[in-house]
């Protein structure tokens, strides 16, 4: 009786949205940034009087401990609490674990940053009816990255470093390799590490032996910073490139700005783009530090739900799902989002940034082909 | 020198010492005899501070030992050769002897005492570098005695020093006890081997299930019919 209960919920003074988030465990950073972003969106709408004529939005969070089993449990708990929609998990594999639960209960789920292509697709090529996201997907990132490396950086050979524990990194690596070789480039080495490692000198030494023109490093910023720094310390001067996982202000503190010169990454949005300015300012004011892509995408996810509730004029999960399904031209801080009903992926531009003396500088933007 | 007054000790609910009183005078050898489980070891452990009496007083040279932690009691000049030896099995024989002199700082004197210990127990000199845990039972007993001697105590508490020793060594140990005593160390001796104990002691007490039932000159007790029947095997 989810629907009935949810209606009852809507009749009260609040509407509950679930957060299936990585609040502890290995990816606790993501969940906490996401929670900040979502809360900010809710606080803003509640300050404006809420939705559906005065109902306040509340976030019902369940910690998935960065573990897929726990993500299932957290999702079960949330749908049991009669939330109208779920935001999170942030990481692809956990989204996959939560998917059956929300699907069974017919509650929509938006993953702010699960970029794995398969998340929104069910077996047999059909779309997962209840899974949505505000972010572009890994193949697109990999494709953009490969094209940039080959055409703009004129790299003919490349080595790839993959975080073996991350589905995301694997997806980005696969599409990069496919597109780079298709363009005529050559992959000279592939190395793996596990996120959380601190010492990468051994794999870097191996790559050094193959002397590639570029290193494709689709990991998260805390690993990326360390890897680049250690590579430079080993006398490796080639450019690095990677995906949106690079986007975080602390990248330059982890690796030195100097080491990070001549590195590039694909991203959702430039922090200095007009859409982001206000968000960055508000966020810094509220939480005392700069947001990263996780916070921004989560903020957008929350607003997508608010938007769906308002346009549907209802707190019924089925109606919210229907609205999300046909979302077009939604103005998020990370760009304009239009959901493709066949894939539930947004059509979004990607930007490429260059790290220069401690700042990610906007280079160019690429539209989906 | 040592005065025990109405001491009660419990292990949880077990009332192991039920108000015992006795005293040890300077220069004496006093022995406590009694059957298994009478509370002899408990009495010694209480004196050396390993157990806390629930009630009663323990005075040493006029000072109340109550509340003093065990290591402070050692510093006052009481040292114990515990039942079951309790040597430091992971340390060498030499290191065990060093531990005996832990609180002492008079290096030349320590050296002299070490020579004395080696003179009494030549086997220990042979095994200086051996790990104590691999010594035979008797060797361990020698080490325990030697270790206690190294602290140069005023009062030495001995808990069944003859247990597991060869007849020759038992005799030697008792000779050594007499000798140590003659050199000025007061001794409180607990023994299963009551015959030997009474033969070296000045005075003796009989402990029965936590109470002192008899006390007097060792010679007199040894002659007493009850004691002979109960503890001397004849």
């Amino acid at each position, binding site marked *: 009786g989810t629907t009935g209960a949810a209606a009852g919920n809507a009749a009260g003074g609040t509407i509950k949205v679930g957060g299936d988030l990585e609040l502890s465990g290995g990816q606790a950073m993501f969940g906490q940034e996401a929670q900040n972003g979502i809360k900010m969106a809710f606080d803003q709408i509640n300050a404006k009087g809420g939705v559906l004529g005065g109902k306040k939005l509340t976030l019902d*969070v369940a910690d998935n401990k960065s573990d897929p089993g726990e993500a299932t*449990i957290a999702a*079960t*708990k949330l749908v049991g609490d009669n939330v109208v929609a779920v935001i999170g998990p942030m990481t692809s594999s956990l989204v*996959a674990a939560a998917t059956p639960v929300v699907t069974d209960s017919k509650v929509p789920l938006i993953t702010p940053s699960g970029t794995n292509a398969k998340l929104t697709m069910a077996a047999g090529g059909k779309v997962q009816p209840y899974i949505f996201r505000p972010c572009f997907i890994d193949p697109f990132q990999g494709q953009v990255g490969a094209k940039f490396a080959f055409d703009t950086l004129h790299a003919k050979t490349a080595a790839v470093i993959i975080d*073996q524990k991350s589905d995301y990194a694997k997806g980005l690596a696969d599409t990069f390799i496919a597109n780079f070789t298709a363009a005529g480039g050559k992959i000279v080495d592939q190395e793996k590490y596990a996120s959380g490692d601190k010492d990468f000198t051994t794999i870097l030494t191996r790559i050094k032996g193959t002397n590639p023109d570029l290193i494709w490093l689709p990991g998260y910023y805390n690993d990326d910073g360390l890897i680049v720094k250690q590579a430079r310390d080993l006398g490796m001067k080639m450019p690095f490139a990677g995906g949106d996982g690079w986007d975080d202000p602390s990248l330059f503190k982890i690796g030195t700005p100097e080491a990070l010169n001549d590195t590039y990454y694909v991203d959702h949005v430039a922090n200095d783009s007009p859409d982001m300015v206000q968000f960055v300012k508000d966020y810094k004011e509220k939480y005392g530090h700069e947001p990263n892509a996780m916070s921004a995408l989560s903020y957008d996810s929350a607003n997508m739900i608010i938007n769906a509730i308002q346009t549907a004029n209802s707190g019924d999960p089925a109606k919210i799902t229907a609205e999300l399904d046909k979302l077009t031209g939604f103005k998020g801080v990370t760009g304009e989002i239009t959901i493709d009903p066949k894939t539930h992926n947004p059509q979004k531009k990607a930007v490429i940034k260059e790290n220069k003396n401690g700042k990610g500088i906007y280079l160019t933007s690429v539209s989906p082909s | 020198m040592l005065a025990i007054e109405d001491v009660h000790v419990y292990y949880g609910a077990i009332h192991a010492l039920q108000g015992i009183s006795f005293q040890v005078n300077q220069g004496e050898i006093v022995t406590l005899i009694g059957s298994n489980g009478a509370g002899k070891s408990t009495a010694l452990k209480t004196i050396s501070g390993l157990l806390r009496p629930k009630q009663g007083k323990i005075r040493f040279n006029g000072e109340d030992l109550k509340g003093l932690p065990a290591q402070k009691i050692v510093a006052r000049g009481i040292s114990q050769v515990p039942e079951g030896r309790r040597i430091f099995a992971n340390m060498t024989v030499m290191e065990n002897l060093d531990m005996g002199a832990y609180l002492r700082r008079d290096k030349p004197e320590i050296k002299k005492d070490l020579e004395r210990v080696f003179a009494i127990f030549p086997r220990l000199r042979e095994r200086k570098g051996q790990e104590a845990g691999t010594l035979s039972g008797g060797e361990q007993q020698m080490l325990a005695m030697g270790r206690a001697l190294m602290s140069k105590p005023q009062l030495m508490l001995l808990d069944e020093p003859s247990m597991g020793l060869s007849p020759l060594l038992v005799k030697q140990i008792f000779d050594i006890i007499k000798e140590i005593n003659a050199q000025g160390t007061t001794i409180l001796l607990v023994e299963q081997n009551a015959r030997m104990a009474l033969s070296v002691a000045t005075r003796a007490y009989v402990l029965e299930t936590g109470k002192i039932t008899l006390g007097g000159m060792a010679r007199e007790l040894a002659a007493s019919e009850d004691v002979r029947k109960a503890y001397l095997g004849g």
Partner: protein
Amino acid sequence: MKVLNRKNLAILLAVLVAYGGIQAAIAARLVPPFYSVNLMLICVYVILATSLNLINGVTGQFSIGHAGFMAIGAYLSAIVSVKLHGPLGAAILAGAIVSAGVGFLVGLPTLRLKGDYLAITTLGVGQIVQVVFFNTNYVGGAAGFTVPRTVNWTWAFWLTVISIVIIHNFTNSTHGRACISVRENEIAAEAMGINSTKYKVMAFSLGSFFGGIAGGLYANYMYLIQPTTFSFLTSFNILVMVVLGGLGSMTGSIVGAVVMTVLSAYLSNFPEWRMVVTALLLIVMMLFRPSGLLGTKEFNLGFLGKKGESRAA
């Protein structure tokens, strides 16, 4: 018949009531999904805790890598049910047998080790298992292995009951006593004619078998399994349940598993504080009851039987 004395009949009745009651409630849709997940988890953890107790508590072998055996059971059963399209029962059994086999192979050389050396070895085995699954693309590698949900309350409940009964019957027999004697004093046990290696390996294999059963249940209920689920933290969690309940007490392990699972479910409402509170509870628990909730005692239904018939083991 001795098997059907009053005490056993009472237990049987209680078990049937527990099963029937909950099954009826589930059928009537009275159990919110979050509760039913936790009921299943309780079953899984009860099996894990009682089987680890057989190794750690009863036989005294310090194993801290139980999650590794859970992983083997989980993955193998998933392979059988997803890739080979085998029936659920066969899948779970296959997982358990392979897990027991690995337990046997690992146990044979390593159980000579003592105390902390054995501990790190079992921890290592758990880690190795994890790495193997990480690197095996056939089972999805890091991304995980998607498994349809086929386990329901009936499966979970009865497998738990069967596991408990088998472990209990084993422990309370001359073979169980042999294991206990190894725990108490291995040298004396050998001198009494007990082949300590055989019983250590037997307990280890049996424990791994049931660890595998728990893994099979978990995999076929949770939709997705990933190597990280079976990390050493999971092993510690199981160990905590066993010690909390009272090392060596089977009923203690059951209580420990239930308490920890319920606690974890309850605390998920306070994510930031969850681990801190768990940590504090662990410390406080151990300070006040270092031998666990039940010590080595069994919670006993002896009062139902005739006097003397149910002397505690």
